[in-house]
């Protein structure tokens, strides 16, 4: 077991870089905690202004409902018209709702103009928030009208019973949390491993390693093993944080994660070592690692669904190991699916891993043999 000494040496080297240690051990933990709070896509506390030009009592009651709703944060209620476009341009207010009295007189008793005319001005820049805000507002209004109708003795023609599966409270952290663990694993493994070989090149200690009795494969494994161990520790802590701190339910078996994570780590570590053998300075290594990291993250489906990635870039999603890990990790955490639902992803991940590992190893041997 000559490898053991190399692994030990690598660990010593990692721990000797005092300035980098906080980044290796503290930053990921801060990141996962902060990200856990940030990655909320839930729309709430939307700032709105109201302009009430209506004499109608219904307008006041609807405004009351809006003020009580946690979804909206009613800033001002004005009683005269203003330059609303200007307000929206500043960007602090996301919508202005204007109540007016209907101009036409009611036709008869059965079609009363009990309700004011309502105009909603939405800031469309954040398309997502706008669509949800419009939906919320319609919901509040509909509710109001329907309770009103009920009071008048008219039942609702249609009632919907909506059942939400897998994430009944629609907490976005349930969806994002497990993905963040995968993200953290990628960042740590990619950055630190990409430095490992090029550092020896820069310090010109590579030759010492090469004239030792270690075979290239042993050197390769010795370089990867410490980061694999650190990565695993991080992942375990990360999983514990999302489960116990963010209270994310685990519906499936975490054993599948123990199956998928090593395959994924093999892909990332061998990719990072490939970078490390190809570049000539640590700075270049960091730059490439950082650039690849952004690609991995953006095309992984963590923040935005991959279905929207256009055809030309699709193949990048298909060869992105992080995309598969995130898919698998979500199946395990949220849906509690067994392996029969994601064995295809697992096989694809294994295939990608094998290809990257082969390229990386061959390249390493080629460089080493020179």
């Amino acid at each position, binding site marked *: 077991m000559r490898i053991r000494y190399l692994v030990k040496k690598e660990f010593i080297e990692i721990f000797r870089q005092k300035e980098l240690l906080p980044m290796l051990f503290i930053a990921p933990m801060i990141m996962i905690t902060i990200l856990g709070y940030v990655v909320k896509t839930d729309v709430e506390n939307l700032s709105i202004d109201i302009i009430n030009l209506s004499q109608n009592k219904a307008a006041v009651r609807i405004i009351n409902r809006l003020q009580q709703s946690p979804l909206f944060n009613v800033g001002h209620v004005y009683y005269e018209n203003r330059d609303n476009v200007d307000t929206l341009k*500043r*960007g602090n207010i996301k919508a202005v709702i204007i109540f007016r009295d209907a101009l036409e007189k009611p036709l008869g008793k059965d079609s009363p103009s009990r309700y004011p005319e*309502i105009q909603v001005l939405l800031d469309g820049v954040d398309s997502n928030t706008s669509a949800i805000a419009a939906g919320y507002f319609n919901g509040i209004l509909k509710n109001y009208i329907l309770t009103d109708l009920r009071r008048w003795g008219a*039942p609702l023609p249609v009632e919907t019973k909506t059942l939400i599966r897998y994430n009944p409270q629609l907490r976005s952290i349930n*969806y994002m949390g497990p993905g963040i663990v995968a993200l953290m694993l990628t960042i740590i493994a990619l950055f630190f491993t990409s430095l490992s070989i090029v550092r020896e090149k820069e310090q010109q200690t590579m030759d010492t390693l090469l004239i030792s009795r270690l075979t290239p494969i042993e050197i390769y494994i010795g370089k990867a093993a410490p980061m694999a161990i650190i990565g695993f520790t991080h992942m375990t802590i990360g999983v514990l944080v999302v489960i116990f701190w963010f209270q994310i339910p685990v519906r499936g078996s975490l054993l599948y994660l123990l199956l998928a994570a090593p395959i994924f780590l093999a892909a990332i570590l061998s990719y990072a070592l490939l970078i490390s053998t190809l570049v000539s300075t640590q700075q270049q290594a960091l730059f490439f690692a950082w650039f690849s990291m952004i690609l991995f993250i953006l095309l992984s489906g963590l923040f935005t669904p991959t279905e929207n990635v256009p055809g030309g870039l699709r193949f990048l999603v298909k060869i992105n190991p992080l995309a598969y890990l995130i898919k698998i990790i979500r199946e395990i955490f949220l849906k509690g699916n067994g392996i029969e639902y994601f064995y295809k992803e697992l096989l694809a991940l294994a295939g990608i891993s094998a290809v990257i590992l082969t390229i990386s190893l061959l390249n390493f041997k080629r460089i080493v043999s020179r």
Partner: protein
Amino acid sequence: MKRIRAVIVKEFAHILRDPTSLTIVFLMPVVMMFIFGYSINFDLKHIDAGVIDLSKSETSQQLVKKFLNNKYFILQDLEENHPPTISPMETGEQLLKSGELKEIIIIPADFSQKIKDNRSAEIGIIIDGSDSNVANLVYQYNELIILDFISGIRGLDEMVKIHTKVLFNPELKSAFFFIPGLIATLLVMISALLTSLSISREKESGSIDLLFISPLKSPEIIIGKTIPYIFVSLIAGCIILLFARFWFGVPIKGNLLVLLVFAILYIITSLSLGILISTIAPTQKIAMFITLLLTLLPSYMLSGFIFPLQSLPPVLRAISRIIPATYFLKIIRGVVVKGAQLKHFIPEGVALVVFTTLLLAIASLKFARDRRKSK
């Protein structure tokens, strides 16, 4: 002034001597823009929904048709497409589990009868909630369609009129939201990265001592080292902007000059952040690490670029206020998409000026302290 100019000239020589880095600085944003621009997209194009219509009546078909005519839904009749061994309901549940369906709509057998009798008819809907954001949108679209259906029956349209008008981005394209934000995040990253290497490079090569013993005052060195990069970042910024305008078709509604003024201000703030990092970090590698960590995560996560600020907890909201990108993001979205003017963003502009002054002052103090120590 003359002395600052000397530092500027020297720094320019550094920049021009290294064409590779310069190419990376100009090329990187374009590549990033391309990939970001295509991959970040929240638009919900189609919702795969399964329908089980047990009522099979004219009324229920009207409702189904409302879903069909909505461009967001792609309907699948589960009663026609289910394997003979299992029921339509079970088929639906399985497709929901494997992610092929986002929701199942069940119309019960007594649906049309109940409506005819003026009683409440019920519809069952099962939504895949795993992606809360998508689920929320699906739910809202359902409600809108069903509200529309109810209005059709009850004539609610006659009673209440809602006119919804979407300003600035009537087609609700998410590119209008992301592309300007991308410019803000890319600019801070490039700018800070550029200056973060400038002093740490001198530390590594040992030439810092020459700067230390020069007659130049510390603020002069700091400012002189920052100024050349304004041009580099500005060129990179213009490339990004052109790309946004002509490749992604994001219209620039506001005044280009206003945008330029704020952009230069923001670039200077970002460069100052980089120079501060540079005075602290002992090597270029560490400077790079700190910069990537400080610019990437906060300006992506806490500036409102992807995740709405209003849903942040108070502590993080406070942090978001000390991130320059938060302010520039608001400005650039306002000017580019909404056609806002200078007067709309006075407070944001002031905030950026304050940041710049603080960052430069701290950097100068730190530099001066190191200088005293080296003596």
